[in-house]
């Protein structure tokens, strides 16, 4: 795959990334925000509300890559509704178009930010992009003096900024790295379909006629994908095994609550290696 930017650009953007996000949003949402932070938040939301070009320019300035060339993998234009609701067909199409993306890049929020900047400049998203990234705020908040915000107004603005940052590639210092597979719509689509294709190769599922499409649909059902990623982020690394995820999907499809299915498989994987364990043991109802 063609690199998205040269090494120096990537290094510079990575260095600035966390500090920039920390300067925009505190870890806890109820933490007091200074007028300077509110001013920065206003700048980002008004850029998103103004135009895609303006948002891309703001992001470039923040990451110190004003004049650097970016060449993200090509992707066809999507609507704000698709980015917000993430329909199954859209996720499948996104994955097909981004088939050349490698895991070593796909786990980095910074890499997805560079992609999104390039896509904003290439007109991939609706213009202005505020709705696409769920970052709309009442117009009055954008022009209000930053020292005159009430608690509620400040929280509204903060939520919008968090939405934009999460959807552009992840909010690293608040949500941590594995959630790059959960929060931003495009990376989440890529990860979900990639894992669906992997688990569809598990013998027991293949014998029952499960294909990648069915696995993908099950992974999207209820809160299953969120449960899996959250547990992996909390050090339940045994759930990374393909057969473990396949077993969770199978149980959920047969009516087990996703949370219970994750817990049951995690407990079994602590005593048995999922690759060698009988399918009936792995998928037994809790």
């Amino acid at each position, binding site marked *: 795959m063609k690199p998205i930017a040269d090494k120096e650009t990537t290094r510079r953007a990575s260095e600035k990334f966390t500090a920039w996000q920390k300067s925009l949003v505190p870890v806890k949402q109820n933490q007091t925000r200074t007028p300077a932070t509110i001013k920065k938040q206003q700048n980002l939301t008004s850029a998103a509300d103004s135009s895609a070009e303006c948002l891309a320019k703001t992001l470039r300035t923040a990451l110190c890559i004003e004049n650097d060339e970016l060449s993200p993998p090509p992707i066809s234009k999507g609507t704000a509704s698709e980015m917000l609701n993430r329909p199954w067909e859209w996720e499948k199409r996104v994955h097909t178009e981004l088939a050349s993306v490698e*895991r070593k890049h796909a786990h980095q929020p910074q890499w997805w930010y560079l992609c999104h900047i390039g896509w904003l400049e290439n007109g991939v998203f609706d213009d202005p992009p505020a709705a696409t990234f769920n970052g709309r705020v009442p117009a009055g908040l954008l022009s209000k003096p930053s020292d005159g915000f009430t608690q509620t107004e400040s929280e509204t603005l903060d939520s919008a900024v968090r939405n934009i940052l999460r959807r552009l590639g992840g909010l690293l210092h608040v949500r941590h790295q*594995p959630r790059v597979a959960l929060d931003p719509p495009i990376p989440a689509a890529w990860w979900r379909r990639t894992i669906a294709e992997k688990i569809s190769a598990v013998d027991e599922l293949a014998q029952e006629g499960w294909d990648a499409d069915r696995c993908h649909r099950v992974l999207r059902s209820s809160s299953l994908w969120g449960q899996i990623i959250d547990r*992996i982020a909390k050090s339940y690394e045994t759930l*990374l095994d393909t057969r473990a995820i396949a077993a969770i999907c199978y149980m959920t499809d047969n009516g087990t609550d996703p949370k219970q299915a994750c817990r049951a498989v995690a407990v079994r994987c602590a005593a048995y*290696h999922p*690759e*060698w364990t009988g399918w009936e*043991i792995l998928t037994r109802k809790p």
Partner: protein
Amino acid sequence: MGSKRSRRRKRLKRRNRKHRARPLPPAASRVPVLDARYDGNLDWGATSYHPKIGLITDEGDIKVSSNELAGPGAATLQGLIDDYKTMWVLAVRSSLTLHAKTLKAKLGRNQFVGRVRWEDLPRSGHKLYGHPGMIAVKDFELPADSEGLHPAWGDAYGTEPIKIQRGAWLVRGRYQPLQPLGATLMTFIADPQLPRKRIKLRYSSGGGHPHWNVSLNAEDLKAVKSAPGTDPLQAAVLMGAWTAVLAAANTLPEFTGRNGQRDDIADAVMDELKDKDTQCPDFGTDDFDPVYAATLLHDLPEHAPDST
């Protein structure tokens, strides 16, 4: 007051009921595990497990050079390997790239080499862990009076053999972070006092893990920490650091083997050197050339670094 006291009494009663000793589960659902992850091993008494996991090379090789068992249950557990009932594995997992792969030994073997795909893993080796252990590869029965097994197994279940199901973990080692050779041997530290393109080296055995602290100017450190590539400055810094480390290693007793056995890192470095050049002299010999050895571990830069 009275009602408060009675509520408290009820709460305590409920709690006691919850924590009342429960009967042992049936034998079929329990497996004795030698778990080296925690202190105090109830199932196998004084038996211990010490896996030796080699370091990842740039090609992604992981060598499990031995799976040592010691103590009263060692013969029983080794017997299971020799009878092809169990095998040694190393589960490699990276929560960042949602990657999991299990490297397996051949049946009946205690050593093995496996390869992970670097494309699937975070380049720095950060958050990549190996989980060594022994698993059952088929259903079998383990006599309750096996040598080394805690007598409680016999007391609780009589002479009934313990049913082990395929896939059960019988031995589990500690999670081990897996890092490339350089990352394990050298720790790079920013030193604001150092001018650019200068390196200082200090030996440290902190935390029982012998390694070298390589001090660099913060700007040079950035170049070294970025993914290995063709940057001449980075290559020169790594070359310099390797040469210094190997020159120091050549004189240290724990590396050269003059003071008892060599440590794991020394073995891993020498294995790596011998892989690149079988004629490479051993540590501690007069023929060992640290500059030549450094070029085996890191290629010379293609262009001369900027001297300004």
